[in-house]
């Protein structure tokens, strides 16, 4: 199409903030401090009294995941990115989960990849336990 054939245009005076609102952020925002978080999410406050901590994900979420394997039969709860004394975290968390669920829970610690695994589905309980400690 030739430039002469294109329709004539005129500029429009518009509030550019309307356009900026449509453009996405390039980075994940840091959540601001609020009085309450109705969804149950809490920011990481840190706990210097504990010899361990967990690194939050890029989206500021706790690194506790459910791995479902063997076509839904095998379920593992994984706590990733554990820093500090990983065995201490494992022992305390295992004691808490076994008491709360009144059963033996098989577990595994990987010191190289820094994760702790529990056999079963305990994601919410682990997250609540970590949140109580401000991690």
């Amino acid at each position, binding site marked *: 199409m030739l430039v002469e054939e294109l*329709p004539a245009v005129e500029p429009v005076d518009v509030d550019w903030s*309307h*356009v900026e609102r449509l453009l996405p952020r390039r980075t994940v925002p840091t*959540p601001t401090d609020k009085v309450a978080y109705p969804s149950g999410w809490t920011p990481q406050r840190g706990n210097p009294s504990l010899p361990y901590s967990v690194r939050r994900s890029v989206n500021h979420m706790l690194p506790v995941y459910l791995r479902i394997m063997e076509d839904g039969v095998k379920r593992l709860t994984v706590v990733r990115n554990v820093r500090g004394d990983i065995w201490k975290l494992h022992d305390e968390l295992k004691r808490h989960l076994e008491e709360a669920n009144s059963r033996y829970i098989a577990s595994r610690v990987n010191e190289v990849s820094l994760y702790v695994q529990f056999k079963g589905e305990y994601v919410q309980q682990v997250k609540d336990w970590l949140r109580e400690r401000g991690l």
Partner: protein
Amino acid sequence: MASRAGQEKALRLLRHLPRVALNNIDHPNPKPASRRKRGAHGGDTHGAGDKGSKARQHFARAGFEGGQTPFYIRIPREDPYKGHHLRREYPPVSLHQLQLMVDTDRVDAGRQIDLTQICNSGLFRLEPLRRQFGFQLTDEGMDEFVTPVNLEVQWASERVIAAVERAGGTITTAFYDMASLQAMVDPERFFKRGVPIPRRALPPQDAVGYYTDPSTRGYLADPEQVARHRLTLAQKYGYELPKVKEGPLTERKDPRQIFFGLEPGWLVNLTDKQVWRVKDPVMSEYFRS
């Protein structure tokens, strides 16, 4: 009738015997275990009879019923995927996820949260080319939803509408056609194409009923009817309907508009931060109608 002594002896015996089960009582056996055809009495034709196609392992094709119309031809076909390419999909977003997005500032609760805002959060992806026409709001986490928000989704159930309105917010269900969706899902990419903002089309025939219905908060419904339904829904679910102030919580788009503050037919230049519109009266009349 056995004597008293005999009965007692039997009961005493029963205490030491194993539990009664099928393998230790006498019962009829309609299906005795099959035995191989071997030896003097099983040999010779080995159960195949004399001659015939069966004896010579030359059977008819599977399903053949001696000439009678077979079962697999007699029963009519059913197409489970018939028209699948015409069915619209609405990927779910739960109220819990929405509350989490608001808590972690992934989405701005001060302005309307529509399809573009949910996609821009980076947590949800919509693919219009896979017949995904927008988001539906699900009821997971509706008991913990307390933030007043101005929502615009493509489908929501009655309970979800009640949960949003109970928190003091507003919800609208709106339809976007394919061209509008392409623009809304990635506005930056759309503006870079140099194509004017499309005029939103009206919903197709099978969706008109949903989007003109005030009980589903359709964007084409009468606002007065919608207000009445807000009251009746509050009465039905037994909550006090909070007063919603005129402002960001009540801002609505025109039925032909897809972006706030920008009209259809306008061209956005991101580099020069300039918006253009066509001078031609016929074209501008079309876009403005």
